[in-house]
């Protein structure tokens, strides 16, 4: 793969992707490590990066670790654990100032690689396993994070809807794992899981900034000296799920506002040639403030402050979310289903088509202005195996007509209606 500006190569068993540019004041680095989402490994895989960020061989104490980042002009360092399709992805990120803006004695890019390489491959070890106190504290941290999901009702309802819809697939799993599994994880078992994870994960390293592929490769070989077995790629085992009937799930919690979420299945995924049609379908349905959901649920009926839809091309699902008065449930469901029917019937105006195309065009063009957005877009290509540049996708979106959107609508089947409602009355 060559376009989109990234230059692709291999080093130290990782796939390396470099975009040389002077557009930013920083070097953006992302390391993606992906493994299949699996009940037996999901929890230790999620816990490992929390322990890795506590200490390394060179910076064994957490304070030293964090002080080091501050010395590098407050280099941004963080990680995320999430699901993409049926993979569990751990993403490490660093964002470091380009040396030319500060009076630094060290090469901040080189030092960032040294730091990230150390985090990933040279953790603090005591008697051949992770430090016990770090594992104990971070186990609690992950437990608290899992328990805290319910605090944010919008997110909670969205995750519960997916969990219900995908209850027979690995995708039901939370990317941070399962609370029940945490207790049995020991410093030794976690170290073993970490080693297996590092050897088995698909690794993609991205750099965007004022550098070259040669420089990055040199740094990688120097600081990630571990030999990864081979450079494997992602493979999709997507199978469309047929929906026989719509399932309704209601849950009661102490809330002021009801949260109405819907889950839809589609056979169109990121690598599909019809992907642009699915993007357009989602855009017309609920991706924007001109979309059917916003206009009909919010502007016409004043039922909600937010009413929108999302499309996840890696998993082949669509979601709808809105916050409403609990007594308006029936009315809101009817209006939303009516919008789905309108799309299936092909009731799509030229104005809706043109507005949605313009918005998608804007979104795809804006990717150029953010280093991490550029990285994320290219990673989607690695993940799906679909070599399609933003420009190509743009051209495909531009060619979509109402009949294409109607055809896409036929693939989107309502699967689950989830309603989080108040206790009492």
């Amino acid at each position, binding site marked *: 793969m060559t376009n989109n500006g990234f230059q692709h190569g291999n080093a130290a068993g990782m796939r390396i992707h470099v975009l040389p540019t002077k557009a930013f004041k920083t070097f953006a680095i992302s390391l993606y490590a992906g493994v299949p989402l699996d009940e037996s490994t999901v929890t230790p895989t999620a816990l490992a990066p929390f322990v890795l960020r506590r200490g390394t061989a060179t910076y064994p104490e957490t304070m030293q670790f964090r002080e080091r980042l501050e010395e590098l002009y407050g280099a941004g360092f963080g990680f995320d654990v999430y699901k993409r399709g049926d993979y569990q992805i751990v993403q490490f990120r660093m964002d470091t100032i380009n040396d030319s803006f500060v009076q630094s004695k060290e090469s901040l890019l080189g030092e960032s690689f040294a730091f990230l390489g150390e985090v990933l491959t040279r953790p603090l070890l005591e008697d051949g396993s992770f430090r016990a106190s770090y594992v104990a504290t971070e186990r609690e941290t992950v437990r608290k994070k899992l328990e805290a999901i319910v605090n944010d009702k919008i997110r909670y309802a969205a995750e519960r809807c997916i969990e219900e819809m995908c209850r027979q697939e690995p995708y039901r799993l939370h990317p941070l794992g399962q609370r029940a599994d945490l207790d049995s994880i020991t410093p030794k078992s976690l170290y073993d899981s970490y080693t297996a994870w590092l050897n088995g994960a698909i690794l993609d390293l991205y750099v965007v900034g004022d550098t070259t592929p040669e420089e990055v490769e040199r740094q990688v070989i120097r600081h990630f000296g571990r030999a990864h077995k081979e450079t494997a790629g992602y493979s999709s085992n997507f199978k469309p799920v047929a929906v026989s009937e719509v399932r309704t799930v209601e849950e009661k919690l102490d809330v002021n506002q009801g949260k109405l979420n819907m889950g839809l299945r589609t056979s169109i995924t990121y690598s599909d040639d019809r992907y642009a049609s699915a993007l357009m379908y989602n855009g017309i349905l609920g991706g924007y403030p001109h979309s059917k959901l916003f*206009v009909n649920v919010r502007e016409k009926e004043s039922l909600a402050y937010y009413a929108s839809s999302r499309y996840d091309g890696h998993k082949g699902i669509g979601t709808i979310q809105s916050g409403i008065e609990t007594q308006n449930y029936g009315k809101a469901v009817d209006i939303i289903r009516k919008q789905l029917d309108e799309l299936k019937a092909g009731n799509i105006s030229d104005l809706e088509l043109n507005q949605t195309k313009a918005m998608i065009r804007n979104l795809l063009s804006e990717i150029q202005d953010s280093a991490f957005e550029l990285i994320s877009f290219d990673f989607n290509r690695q993940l799906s195996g679909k070599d399609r540049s933003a420009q190509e996708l743009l051209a495909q979106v531009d060619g979509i007509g109402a009949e294409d959107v109607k055809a896409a609508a036929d693939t989107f089947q309502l699967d689950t209606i989830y309603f989080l409602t108040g206790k009492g009355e």
Partner: protein
Amino acid sequence: MNKLHYDKLQETLYHEVMDNGLHVYVLPKPAFKKTYATFATKYGSVDNHFKVAGGEETTVPDGIAHFLEHKMFEEPEGDIFATFASNGASANAFTSFDQTVYLFSATENIETNLSTLIDFVQRPYFTDENVEKEKGIIGQEINMYADNPDWRVYFGLIEAMYSKHPVHIDIAGTIDSIATITKETLYTCYNSFYHPSNMLLFIVGGVEPEKVFELVRTNQAAKAYDKQGEITRIFEEEPVQVAQKHKESRLAVSMPKCLFGFKEKPEGLTGEAAVRRDLTTKLMLDLLFGSSTALYQKLYDEELISDSFGHEFNSSPQYAFSAVGGDTKDPDLLLKRIKEEVNAVLASGFAEKDFERARKKKIGGYLRMLNSPESIAHEFTRYQFRGGDLFEVLPVYESITLDEVNARLRAHVDWEQLSVSLVVSP
């Protein structure tokens, strides 16, 4: 057109004041595809009691600045979102304590979109019917925030600290307060605060400054604005002491949320003095509560705080307070430990090497922020409305001394001025 070059930042800013008093700034970013524009008025939720020279003293319902922001998007021919969408622009707006900001981001049709932004904000259209309709939508927005424990604990803290100053009133108001809003009250607020001389237009992205200024000049010249007198904002006197030491709200949460902070005596600071006080205070709070401090690490290992533990400082000429905290299993114990650890730092002061490192971190954070057109536009406007200059922050950071930060620590941390806000499960 004035040109200001900031060599160290490799940025050039262009500025012009229109005949009607509107300040326009353009920051070209030739490498960027997108253009981001904000059109802001110095008018927010705290401006609920005011007088315009030559007019009457007026008090308006709580939440009206935010309500007005919603209503601006409605035009006689429909929703302005549709116009932006037709031109590929993503538009939005937000209301804070002291400003209302309308914005768009787009990669094409920049001139059309810029005209749309200026025109819709300068063309109010309120009817009895569309005002009533909005009450349902904003009512749901208020309910959404009522279910959000982070918002509740944050506003709980401000309510605990302030009894008179309207900063303690929720930006969206309440269901009851917005019920009293009419198209007449909306026009009163609009006519008082949306005069161009109270507003700032900022454009950042792949644009040519002279073309932008020409567009704005022509656009503004075609609109008749009378000169507006000075706006006086009237604030009841706020007691120096906190209103409540402790405030608790009930909401289903997995673990209590605890936010505490110190209320400072307002000093009426503006301009460079305010910028310096704010940056010094934020640096001080980072040295005291940041994730690389001994205090943070101890409390984390004692399992009294989590990654949610954070700190901020909020100020205007009439108020200044810190807000520190996050989730904790034991708020009483956390506060006891905080007191012990903070008192120890108060006795010793900060160390030189920690100070230098924290300063580096702040400088790095500032430079990173300059990668983001959104952040630049928002921060620049916020600084300007306070009489400061975002692009002069670097020299301020470079000149802050350890003594200054230690002095700020001792001035800010006054246990008599402490309020605590909790959200706990019923």
